[in-house]
């Protein structure tokens, strides 16, 4: 492998400035591209102008968001991730600033979450999405530092890591946005475990998590709707018209797609808007109904390709920082995908999380592409410098 990079082919030498492009992971790129195309079609289908009450112009915005995301991701891929390591504290600080800004009067409430900043009336910005890559970078930075001949981070670094994870978690909880908080928990847990912390740390943190969950439940720190969603997940017949409705309609919608689906734009459930938020959090139901098992499984498969390529990149990266960043990203995307798809098919409670690369979204799309950019950057540098 190293021999390959030490003697680049003629074609790659001719490519000159753009040469890192050729060293990107092709599978990852293709899978993301395919997911993006499918996602665009599904967003189109679920926001068609003919649909009563459907927001119009969302497809164009989605395409614009994808372009911006692609630009951001591409730019980051070209950057040496060790350079990013130097700027990680700054990026983290910026993200935290964004989260703080949301809590000031500058923040806006959309769909029950006070997690938006609206710039110029049109451009909506969700800082919590940027908190995900920022936390990945911050944690990797702290936990990559190990003494010679040691494979585990020092306890002090672990404490520090928990500290920098707690800040965004707390800020996001204040919005409140339970889904993103859980993603941050997943990222923190993943990076900590992979960094090699002792089992007692893992056990201890798991215990803390359980205690925290119990406290949250007992002291009713969650919003009523969050509790209802969870209860409805446990017993969907509890409130079939209310909290159980989304869950049930999502399942009906996906199930009615059968093997080959009803065809793009032909979903009766989608057209009737039986599932709310079907272009964002519940976009997977559109895939299930219109593309059937074949299409839905393909999306899961493509996401699987993204995750497995990400893991491969992490495994092959000999630089601890890069490996931790890549693993953190995989944890983030894997968790988000599992929760999102799982809630539409009735195996997870409903949590407001978009499906990476498929759902309509602005900041979320940027964050996803930043994640892919980071993975590619790690992959490219790994190949360049061994």
């Amino acid at each position, binding site marked *: 492998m190293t021999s390959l990079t030490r003697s680049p082919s003629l074609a790659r030498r001719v490519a000159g400035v753009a040469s890192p492009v050729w060293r990107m992971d092709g599978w990852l790129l293709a899978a993301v591209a395919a997911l993006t195309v499918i996602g665009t079609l599904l967003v189109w289908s679920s926001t068609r102008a003919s*649909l*009563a*009450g459907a927001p119009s112009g969302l497809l164009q915005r989605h395409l614009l968001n994808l372009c911006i995301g692609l630009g951001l991701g591409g730019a980051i891929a070209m950057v040496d991730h060790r350079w990013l390591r130097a700027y990680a504290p700054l990026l983290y600080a910026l993200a935290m600033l964004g989260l703080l800004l949301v809590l000031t009067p500058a923040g806006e409430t959309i769909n029950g979450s006070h997690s938006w900043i609206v710039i110029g009336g049109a451009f909506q910005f969700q800082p919590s999405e940027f908190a995900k890559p920022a936390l990945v970078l911050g944690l990797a930075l702290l936990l990559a530092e190990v003494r010679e001949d040691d*494979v*585990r981070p020092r306890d002090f670094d672990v404490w520090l890591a928990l500290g920098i994870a707690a800040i965004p978690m707390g800020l996001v909880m204040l919005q409140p946005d339970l889904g993103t908080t859980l993603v941050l928990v997943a990222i923190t847990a*993943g990076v900590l*475990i*992979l*960094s*090699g912390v002792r089992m007692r740390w893992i056990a201890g943190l798991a215990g803390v998590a359980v205690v925290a969950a119990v406290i949250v439940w007992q002291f009713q720190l969650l919003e009523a709707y969050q509790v209802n969603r969870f209860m409805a997940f446990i017993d969907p017949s509890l409130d079939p018209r209310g909290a159980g409705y989304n869950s049930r*309609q999502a*399942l*009906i*919608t*996906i*199930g*009615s*797609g*059968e*093997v080959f689906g009803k065809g793009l734009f032909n979903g*009766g*459930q989608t*057209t*009737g*808007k*039986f599932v709310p938020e079907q272009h964002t959090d519940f976009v997977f139901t559109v895939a*299930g109904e219109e593309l*059937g*098992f074949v299409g*839905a*499984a393909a999306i*899961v*498969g493509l*996401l*699987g390709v993204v*995750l*497995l390529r990400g*893991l491969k990149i*992490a*495994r092959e990266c*000999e630089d*601890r920082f890069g*490996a931790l960043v890549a*693993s953190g990203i*995989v*944890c983030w995307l*894997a968790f988000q*995908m*599992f929760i999102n*798809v*799982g809630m539409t*098919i*009735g*195996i997870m409670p409903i949590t407001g999380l978009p499906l990476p690369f498929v759902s309509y979204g602005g900041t979320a799309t940027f964050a996803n592409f930043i994640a892919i950019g980071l993975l590619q950057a790690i992959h490219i540098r790994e190949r360049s410098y061994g």
Partner: protein
Amino acid sequence: MSLMQSRMIALHVFVVVMLVVLAGRLWQVQVMRGQHFVTVANKTQTRAVVVPAVRGQILDAVGRPLVRNRTSLVVSVDTMELSRMPDKGKAVIGRLAELLGRPAVDIQKRVRLCGPKVSRPCWPGSPYQPVPVDDHVSTPMALQLLERQEEFPGVSARVQAVRDYPLGDDGAQMLGYLQPVTQQELERRVGLKASFSGVDLVGRSGLEAQYDEYLRGKPGVRAYNVDRMGKIIGTESHMAPTTGDTLVTSIDARVQASVDAALDKVMRRAKDRPDGAAGVVLDVKTGRVIALSSLPTYNPKIWIGGISDPAYQRLLSEKNGKPLTSRATNGELAPGSTFKVVSVAGAVKDGYPLHGTYDCPGTFRVGNREFRNFEGVAHGRMNLHQALVVSCDTIFYRFAYEQWQRDGGIRPRAKPRDPLEAMSRAFGFGRRTGIDLPNEADGRIPSREWKRDLWEVTREENCRRARTGYPEVHRKDPTRAVFLKRLAAENCKEGYVWRPGDAANFSIGQGDVLVTPLQLAVAYAALVGDGRIRSPRIARALVRPDGRVVKEITPPVVGRLPVSDEVRDYMRRALADVTRGKGTAAGPFSTFPLDRVHVAGKTGTAEVYGKRDTAWFASFAPAQDPRFVVVVMVSQGGMGGGVAAPIAREIWESIYGVGRPAAMPGGVPPSGLPAFQADGTVRVPPDPRHEAIPVKTPRDSERPGRPGRPGDQEEATPPRRGPDDAPGEGTGDGTGEGPGEGTGEGPGEGTPGNAGEDGPRAREPDADDGPRRPRDQGE
């Protein structure tokens, strides 16, 4: 790095497990249970709205409407749309109430859905079906509603077809009525995909019920795609309604009207105060029904738009004479002397010479009891011809008694011949005629078997009474109580025995024999026609609105009289003399031009215990070659010759145009079906009396959905009698039908029906309907 590598492998496994879990669950949901979710999804995505079909008309033989459709402006409220309003439509309903001039609460109640805790008034149909709140809206009101739609969102005014009865009260029981169909009835129907909408009507009696399947047409169904709020976002499918078939009957509207008018006249006669009357006109040649009347009657329009409870109770009440029941098909009464044609046929069949002469004494001893002629008059020796003309009873008592003796008397032989019973059944008595109307009555032919059944049912009570006696009667009438006790004792012991008194009464249409006016008409039609018993039919054909004949209906031949042509001819000639000379109906026909139209017939006066006589006249004309049979029955009317025959005369005058315009010019019913024109209308041939009545037949189109010209079909025929006339018309004595009637002559009354010393009668009036039940179940 090995620690990190190993933990990474764990993550790897974790990711792969997640992917497998998701794919597995997808397989389960989409592939394994997919079909189930498709069904569920279809149910939630579409809403069916029923578009009612226009019901077919009912026409008379030449195309005059008996039941037609009138357009009516109906205001409906779409409750789904109201429920989406912020105030749940309160404001709209308030404005609507103001416009219609009704309290808003009233409308609120009507549009709410019926439920376990919501009782009427409420809407029993589908929530997606617009709820009709008013069906008598004036055109200006409807226009206001349509023009000010922004003030009345969800409120619509539509033209809807509503039943209209040009004949008013005439033949109401025969035509029948409509009621909203119930969920259960809908589920029983085959092939109807639409769900219960609450707007469908079903024929509940008469022709409307009998031919409901044809008349009702097929409702259209509009399947809408709805979103999760129930808002309509598109039309999935649309099936236009199909107008029902037009029912062409053999009824002649004018003859029908004349029968009703003649019966009405006698019903109103203050001195007699009959409690019911019926008239049947049959076509002898074909067995078709030309008129079928029963009084008291009512105007079927009271059913339109839902009958009120007081009005319904009025229809059912004894006091008003139960106008819902047709006495023509369901009134079971003793036929009296009209039954003698059966006795003559039975006697001749049994070997009595047709041309023999028989003594007609004033009384005839049956067993140990005297049976008297009418008013005890002796007529001397006479032939059977004369016996029919003067209606001698004693000749038939003798026949019956001798036949009874030949069958073994009190100890009957193994296989008694019972010639009269056999002949009665051959004439079609004791069973339904099979007319195309629901719930026809059977009538009753008394027999040994019937007596035994009755005895078995009543034995226990009779034996108990034989021991305990009748203390409650004893207080008032000790003699009667003693008699009743003795009667009970004998009935207990040998009430099953067919006694000579039973046979004698039977022979003159008294005692236990019961017939319906229709049965009698069918029997006479067979007798004076070709000897074949035909199951009468009112319907001639079912025709599509464009004139295409769907089904032609011919009265089927269901039997043949075992009577030779010679005997039938003999009787026909005899009956021709009843209306002249010494005949029992000579009086009423004394001024009738018999030389032009020779009306023949037989009178009947049936005695009913505790009530006045039932008057009968069974007639036919022309006597030489009979074309029509007219049977008239007046319950509690009096003498057949004095009460029933004059009514029949009026009917004959109308048919042939005696002293008035002929209802059936030439005395011949139309041979073909009315001429349907291409546009669906029927041209009624012009006649001297009336201009042709234009009849509009609805085409196969979605009429109710389109605002039309509501006024253009308003050609209401004012009813001859208003429905308000009905109360107080009855005599309060019961209805003149039912098993108790005409059978219950009690002991010791001295009537010809009384068994007297001869032997105890099987029955007390209050034990009367006992024996019918086991028989009915067997059929």
